[in-house]
């Protein structure tokens, strides 16, 4: 089974984790247009490549960020979320 490394709990089988999707920044709901909002809600960056994703280590309920190449299914880096950027 593939290994995912939780920044707190260390390397574990990926079955111990939940995938939370790509990290996307929310437009300001007060100022964005309906189309911008719909784009945020539904559209995804579906092409293969390196993505910043939410992952959760389930036994400890630890959410963190994984940078993963979705074309090769290789985890490049994981770290705790510290904000955008």
């Amino acid at each position, binding site marked *: *089974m*593939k290994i995912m490394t939780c920044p707190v709990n260390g390397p574990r089988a990926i079955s111990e984790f939940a995938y*939370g999707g790509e990290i996307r920044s929310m437009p300001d*709901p007060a100022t964005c247009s309906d189309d911008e909002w719909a784009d945020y809600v*539904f559209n995804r960056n579906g092409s293969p490549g390196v993505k910043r994703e939410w992952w*959760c280590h*389930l036994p400890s309920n630890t*959410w963190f960020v994984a940078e993963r190449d979705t074309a090769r*299914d290789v985890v490049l880096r994981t770290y705790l979320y510290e904000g955008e950027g």
Partner: protein
Amino acid sequence: MRLPAQPGEWIDRTTPLGFRFEGRDYTGFAGDTVASALAAAGVSMLGRSFKYHRPRGLLSAANHDVNAMMQWGGMPNLRADATPLAAGMDLEAVNTFGTLERDAGSMLGHLSRFLPVGFYYKAFHGKRLFPLWEKMFRAMTGLGKVDFSAPRQRTPKRYGFCDVLVVGGGTSGLAAALSAAEQGAQVALVDENARLGGSTQGASELVGKVLAHPRIRVFTDTYAAGYYADHWVPLVERERITKMRARAVVVAAGAFEQPAVFRNNDLPGVMLASGAARLIRRHAVQPAGRIVLLAANADAYQALADFIRAGIEVAAVVDLRGTLPSEQRALPAAHDIPLFAGHCILEALPSSDGRRVAGVKIAPLGQTQAIAELACDGVFMSVGWAPAAALLYQAGTKMRYDAGIEQFVPEKLPDGVFACGRVNGVHTFASRLLDGERAGSAAAAHCGLGGAKPIAVPTETDSPTHPWPIVPHPEGKNFIDFDEDLQLSDLENAIQEGFDNIELMKRYSTVGMGPSQGKHSNMNALRVLARATGATPGEVGTTTARPFFHPVPMSHLAGRGFTPERRTPMHALHEAAGAVWMPAGAWQRPEYYAIHGLTREACIEGEALAVRQGVGLIDVGTLGKLEIRGPQAAEFLERVYVSKYAGLKTGMTRYAVMCDEAGVVIDDGVIARLADDHFYFTTTTSGAAAVYRELSRWNTLWKMDCGIVNLTGAMAAMNLAGPKAKQVLTGLTDVDLSLPFLAVREGNVCGVPARLMRAGFVGEWGVEIHVPAEHGARVWQALMQAGQAHGIRPFGVEAQRLLRLEKGHIIIGQDTDGLTTPGEAGLDWAVKMDKPFFVGQRSLAIIASKPRPRQLVGFMLPADHAGPAPQECHLVIDNGDIAGRVTSIAWSPALQRHIGMAYVKPGMDAAGSTFAIRLSDKTLVSAEVAKTPFYDPDNLRQKEEA
């Protein structure tokens, strides 16, 4: 015929084992395979081929002989060449019509001219006739039979760990294991054979060292089923699977000896030289008395020595090569064995009964006229190899075709994956030792253990593989794929029809798709395609090598099959009270409590009646139970739920609806404010884990000053409801029971700390009691006991569903679906669009600007409704079109009517108007839109402050 004792033989001659095959009794020895015992008894026909039902025998004796598949009781498709003989086995060949001897299916062989490649695509598809043809095909197809009475086997599975996993216990694998272990690595060495040493003699010294090494764990009789990400390799043992996590993997899987292609190359008695050598060495079986050896490499002449030593008469050596090294010529010369260099076997000749080879015709390579015909009862072939590279491919290795040795070899290996020995294109014994040492050392170094030894492995000077061991014949029956009965012309014809890509050719012809997954056919098929299209084998490329290496029993894959079950602290009490269980995710919940002599419906109605007229108690401990504390707790809740909570008074509760970002209702519950900065709240049973996880994610993202604790399992919860509930509880608690509707109090119940929430879900005076799980059973029992005098009944999920329906409360997931917005579900009142933000708010604002597609309404059937009532998900029909559906419906004992909820189109939701519901039998039932709650519309009963 059994030979005298062979050095290192695997059989135990002191332990004879009796068994049956096709109704006849035989005896073999412990250590035999089924096939070797039968070979010793002179049985050469072990099975019939898949399509033409031709007689087939041993080919490889290495777990690839899929034409020698057998059935033993409930076990289908046992490979005779790899199945250890056991006393009392009663075996039959699979896929015969009648018996192996008299197989009615063999007439298909005569029809083969009518059945070229892909023939089934070209006929039988008449619309009316196809079902009939299909019936016939289905009678012909398949191999072994499943036995419906076979029990489920639960085999253990385990996780394993090592530094270096070496796959293959032949010469190079042994050397790799030793060299890695000597550098300090913990090594696991796997080999599919019962003993280490591989197919070559001469490694026995290494075997001893490996077995004695403290850092090497040996798995014999075990195969690596596949390579998965991060060096994860399931090792399939006879009784279980070990899922091995390695830090580095050395693939020393060797190579499959490849058959030559000539007419009748499938006759029993025609086999790979390595297979014949295995029978001799391991099982002391002489596979034939007089053979012709078809050769094209040095391995052939090493095997020849074995055959001579075993007393086999060698009628001739036919070598595909025109010139061959003098040391190879020397052996046949020394034994006066005629050597036909530059010749091929044009065809093998069957015995009079067609069941064994009886001779060969020999011709100069490339010519169609035989120059000699020799009698023999065996043809042994050693013309080349194909690497056992499946694991390497699965690991992502880039392979290239090495024309010097006519073999695919690794060009670029993935990080932490190493290859050595024949799979790496290294065939000479001394070189394999070196190559193994090199790979083992590099693998240990990869794990940070020592440095990689700089070892240079000499390249092969003599190709072990012939580039074209394929002899055309106008009469065909020169098989390329024994699993699928594919002849040379089948592939040529497929190419002619445009299937000239390796994958397309495979799919059209089915070459390589049988149980051996192309181990003996892919390489020759690829050569045929390369030659036909004028490409090199490297340009043609290989097909994808998917797991598994050998088929794996489902029992092994399944293992024990852990299915964890979750139980509330009152589980045993429910069981004792006659609970009939219904699954709710991992939980089991009482659907109702069975009473002897009463129907399910009567039990449920009785439970509901108890709540309406007396008192009932339900376990609601499966609800998600969360706690949030901190200065920003209220703000957090306002961001994730659609209502407002900042203004909720301490000591009060409020209904809570959660939406996703698209504005779809995903969960609901009740939020109780215990202090200014402290809330306790519930979620649905099925949503509990996901809601907690998602709230945690939001909190990680927003970094608000609050913390969420999941108390779902730590708190027991029960709802005591009914006009007599207060009387039951009085005396058991220090909480003032005059608390108002929707209030929450902390206090003691039965002497344990409890949270009491005045709830109205079922529409009577009721209180949800939450206590630490360890006290749940005690509190439940105390309530039941105190309630006895008031006729208390435990009630289950079904009674609760009825009671809440009478009150018009929705159930998320039943009265909503994956697209329901709060407005559609009649929850507009809960949605506070004037908050600064909540999840889903912006989407709901957009949705609000569009016409609402549907509305959930309450409805009643006429009081005099007779006949069957609608069921949930029956459709609402308007002018012949679908206008909605029923989401909930029940017979209300309180109202003496059928009541329900349904989605209808806008404009159909006016109270008092009617609509039609269509039953499964297409009759229409009229229903009247009714205001909810149906029961106690002013909610007096639940609010009553008695």
